[in-house]
C-alpha cells in the first residue's frame, strides 16, 4: 500500500461517480445539457481531489444546486431539498473554517440524510424518485462524493465518535421503518421510494460505524447504494417511457415484451438487497460486522430490513414483469440503454468480486487525518 495507494483512493471513487453521472446522459442524451454535465464533473473532481475541506464542501454544494436546476421543472420539492442540502454543505464548510468540527459533522450528516432520503427527511428524495428518477440517479453520484468528503474531513474527532452510536441506532430504526413502508407499496415508484429510504437508513448506520473507525465500509455502502439504486432508477425510467406509470393492480406480464429490461431490473433489484456476486453483498457483510461492534440489536434490525426489502423486490418484479403477457408496440431496451446498464452491472460485479480495488485505498486514505485538520 503506502503512499501510492493513498493517492489512488479519490480516483477510484471519481470513476464510480463519473459512470453514475454520465449513465443517464448516455442512455437518454436528449434530456441533457452538456455544459451542466461538464460542470458536475468538475465539481465532482474538485470535491474528491482537493485537500481543503471547505473547498470540497463548496464543490458539493455547487453540484447540489446544478442537480436542483435539473429537478426543478418537474420536482419542486426535490429542487428545494437539494438547495437546502447545498446550503447545509456551505454551512459545513463554514464550520470547518471556524474549527467547530462537531457542528460540521452534524450539518454534514443532515445534508447526507436529505440527499439520500432518510426517513423522515425523505420528502425531496421521494419526490425525485417519483417524478424525475433520472435526476435522482445523477444526484446519487454527487451524494457519494458528499459521503467521501464527510468521511475525509469531518469524521476524525471525538465528537464524531461520541455521536456514532446514535447514528447507528437511528439509521437502523429508519431502515426498518422504510422497509416496512416498502412492502405495502402498490406502484413501481412507491417501491423505488421505499427502497431508497431503506438504503438511506443503512447509509446513516454505516456513517455511524465510520465514526468508530470503519471508513472503508461506509464508503462501500454508499457506492453500492448509488450503483444499485441508480441502475434501478434507470430501468424504471426506461419502462415508464414505454408504458407509462406502473401500478401493481393493473396487468403485469411485461417480461415477455421487455425481457432485457426484466433481467436488468431483477439484477439491480437484487444488487440493492445484497445479492451475492455484487458489491452490495460485500458491503452488507462488512456493514453488519462493523455494526455488531456498535449494537447487536441494530445489526439484527438491519438484517431484517434487508430481508423485507428483498421480499418487496420480488413482489415488485412479479407484479411488473411476470404474469400473462401484456402486448406492447414499444421496443425493449435500446443499445445505449443496454450499454450503460451493462457498464453499471460490470462495476457492481467487479466491486463484488474484488472489493479491495476500492476498499483498501479508500480505507487507508480516509482513515488518515487530512492536512490542516489535526
Amino acid at each position, binding site marked *: 500500500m503506502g503512499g501510492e495507494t493513498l493517492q489512488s483512493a479519490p480516483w477510484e471513487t471519481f470513476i464510480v461517480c463519473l459512470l453514475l453521472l454520465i449513465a443517464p446522459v448516455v442512455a437518454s442524451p436528449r434530456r441533457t445539457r452538456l455544459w451542466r454535465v461538464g460542470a458536475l464533473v468538475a465539481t465532482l473532481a474538485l470535491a474528491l481531489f482537493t485537500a481543503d475541506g471547505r473547498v470540497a464542501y463548496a464543490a458539493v454544494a455547487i453540484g447540489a444546486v446544478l442537480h436542483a436546476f435539473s429537478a426543478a421543472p*418537474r*420536482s*419542486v*420539492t426535490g429542487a*428545494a431539498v437539494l438547495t437546502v442540502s447545498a446550503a447545509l454543505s456551505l454551512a459545513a464548510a463554514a464550520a470547518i473554517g471556524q474549527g467547530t468540527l462537531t457542528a460540521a459533522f452534524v450539518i454534514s450528516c443532515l445534508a447526507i440524510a436529505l440527499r439520500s432520503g432518510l*426517513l423522515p427527511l425523505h*420528502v425531496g428524495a*421521494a*419526490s425525485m424518485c*417519483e*417524478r424525475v428518477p433520472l435526476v435522482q440517479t445523477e444526484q446519487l453520484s454527487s451524494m457519494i462524493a458528499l459521503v467521501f468528503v464527510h468521511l475525509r474531513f469531518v469524521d476524525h474527532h471525538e465528537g464524531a465518535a461520541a455521536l456514532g452510536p446514535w447514528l447507528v441506532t437511528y439509521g437502523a430504526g429508519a431502515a426498518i421503518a422504510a422497509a*416496512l*413502508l416498502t*412492502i*405495502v*407499496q402498490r406502484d413501481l*415508484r412507491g417501491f423505488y421510494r421505499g427502497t431508497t429510504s431503506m438504503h438511506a437508513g443503512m447509509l446513516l448506520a454505516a456513517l455511524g460505524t465510520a465514526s468508530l473507525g*470503519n471508513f*472503508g465500509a461506509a464508503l462501500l455502502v454508499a457506492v453500492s447504494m448509488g450503483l444499485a439504486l441508480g441502475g434501478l432508477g434507470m430501468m424504471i425510467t426506461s419502462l415508464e417511457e414505454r408504458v407509462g*406509470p406502473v401500478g401493481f393492480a393493473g396487468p403485469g*406480464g411485461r417480461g*415477455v415484451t421487455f*425481457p*432485457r429490461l426484466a*433481467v*436488468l431490473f431483477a439484477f439491480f433489484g*437484487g444488487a440493492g438487497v*445484497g*445479492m*451475492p*456476486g455484487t458489491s452490495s*453483498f*460485500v458491503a452488507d*457483510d*462488512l456493514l*453488519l*460486522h*462493523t455494526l*455488531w*461492534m456498535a449494537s447487536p440489536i441494530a*445489526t*439484527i434490525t438491519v*438484517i431484517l430490513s434487508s*430481508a423485507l426489502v*428483498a*421480499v418487496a423486490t*420480488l413482489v415488485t418484479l*412479479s407484479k411488473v414483469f*411476470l*404474469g*400473462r*403477457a401484456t402486448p406492447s408496440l414499444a421496443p425493449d431496451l435500446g443499445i445505449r440503454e*443496454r450499454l450503460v*446498464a*451493462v457498464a453499471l452491472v460490470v462495476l457492481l460485479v467487479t466491486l463484488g468480486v474484488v*472489493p*479491495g480495488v476500492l*476498499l*483498501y485505498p479508500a*480505507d487507508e486514505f480516509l482513515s488518515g487525518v487530512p492536512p490542516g485538520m489535526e
Partner: protein
Amino acid sequence: MIDTVHLGLALAIIGPFVGSLVVGLTVVLGDNHPTESLTTRAVGAGLGLSILGGILVLASLWGLWGPPVQGDVAFGDWLRIDDYVIPLVLLVDPLSVTIALYAAVLTALVARFSRTYLHKEPGFVRFFGLLGFFATGTQLVAFSGALELFFAGWEVIGIASALFIGYFHERDEPIRSSIRAFSTYRLADAGLLIATVTTFELLGSARFSALLEANTLPPIESTLLALMFLLSAMGKSAQLPFSSWLPRAMEGPTPSSALFYGAVSIHAGLFLLLRVWPVFAVAPAARAAGVAVGLATAIYAASAARVHPDAKGALAHATLAQVGLILAEICMGWTTLALTHLVCHALLRLGQFLKAPNTIHDTHRVGHDSHGPSWLERASPHLAARVYAASLHRLRLDDRIDAAFAPVLGLARALDSTDRWLRRVVALDRSPS
C-alpha cells in the same frame, strides 16, 4: 503453477457460472433470443466442467496425483480490513466432495432430462440459465470453507429456487408460491447471517475450522449460535413451522422440483447442520430442539403425504418426512448415518419426481392398490377423522403464518398512511407526477 486441487475447485464453481453468464449476456446484449442448442451447449459445458472439477478434487483428496489434500484450500482473501477478513477459502474433505459431486452429477442429469422435457417451452432459456446459476450456488455451498462464502452460495440457491417456482408465471398461483417460498427463505436466512457475524465476533474467524473451538464458548452462547443455524436450516429444509412453502413449490416444472425439492436444495439445511456440527456437539438444548422439530415434521409430513390429492404434492410431503428424520438423526449425533440417509434419499426422490408425470399412466396400467382401514381408524374412528382433516388442511400453516404477520403488515400500513400525510403536507409539488 496452479495445482490440481485449486484447478478442480475453480472449475467446479466457476464452470456453471460461466455457462449461465454466456446465456445471460446473449439475452441482454444479443439482437436475437439464444437458441435452445446454444443454451444447452453453454450450460451443459459449464456443468460438465463442474463434474470434471469435482473429480479432480476427489483425486486430490485420495492422493492420486501427489500427496492427499484435505482441509482448507486458500485462494487468498476476498476482503481484509484491519482485523476483519473474509477468506477466500474452500474446504476439501469427504463431506464436501461427496455433496459437491452428487449435486453436480444430479444437476447434469436433470439438465439432460430437461433438454427433451422442456423442448419448445417459452421459458427454456430462462430454465437453463437458472440451472447454471443454481449449480454455482450448490458448489459454493458444498466447498465453502467459511460462513461468508457459504452464505453467498446459500443465497444463490434461494434466489434460483424462488425463480424456478415462479417459472410458469402466466398463472397467479406459481407467482404467489414463489413469493411465499422466498419470504420464508429470507426470514430464516437472517439466522444464518446473524450466526455468521456472531461466529466471527466470538471465535475470531468465520471459517468452519474455527468452529472446532466452539467448546470454549459459554453454554448460552454456543446454544444461541446453534439455534441460529437451526433456524436457517429449518427454513431451507421446510421444517415445521416453515413447511407450507414446500407443497407450493411444486408449481415449478417437474425437473426443477426433482432437483430442488427431491434431491439438492431441500437437503441443504441438513448439510449446513453437518458442517457446523462442532457447535451442535456442545449445545445439547439446541440438539434437543432439532430432534423435536425433525420428528414433529416427520409425523406431520407423513400424515399429509397420505391424503395429498396430487402426485408431486404427496411426494413433497414424503420427502419432508424423511428430511425430518434426517434432521433428528443429525441432532442425535448420528452424522454418518444421516449423510448416508441423505444421499440415498436424494437419489430415490430424484427418480420418483422425474417419473411423477407418468404416475397417472402407470396407475391406469397397474391399477389402484386398495387397502382396508388403518390401525388408527380401527382404534379410534373419531381421532382418525380429526387427523385426516388436519392432514388435509396441512395444519392450516399458511393461515397461521399469515395471522402471525398480520400485525406487522398493519404497522406497515399505518406507517404508509403517516408517510403519505407527511409528504402531502410538506411537498411543494402541485402538478401531477
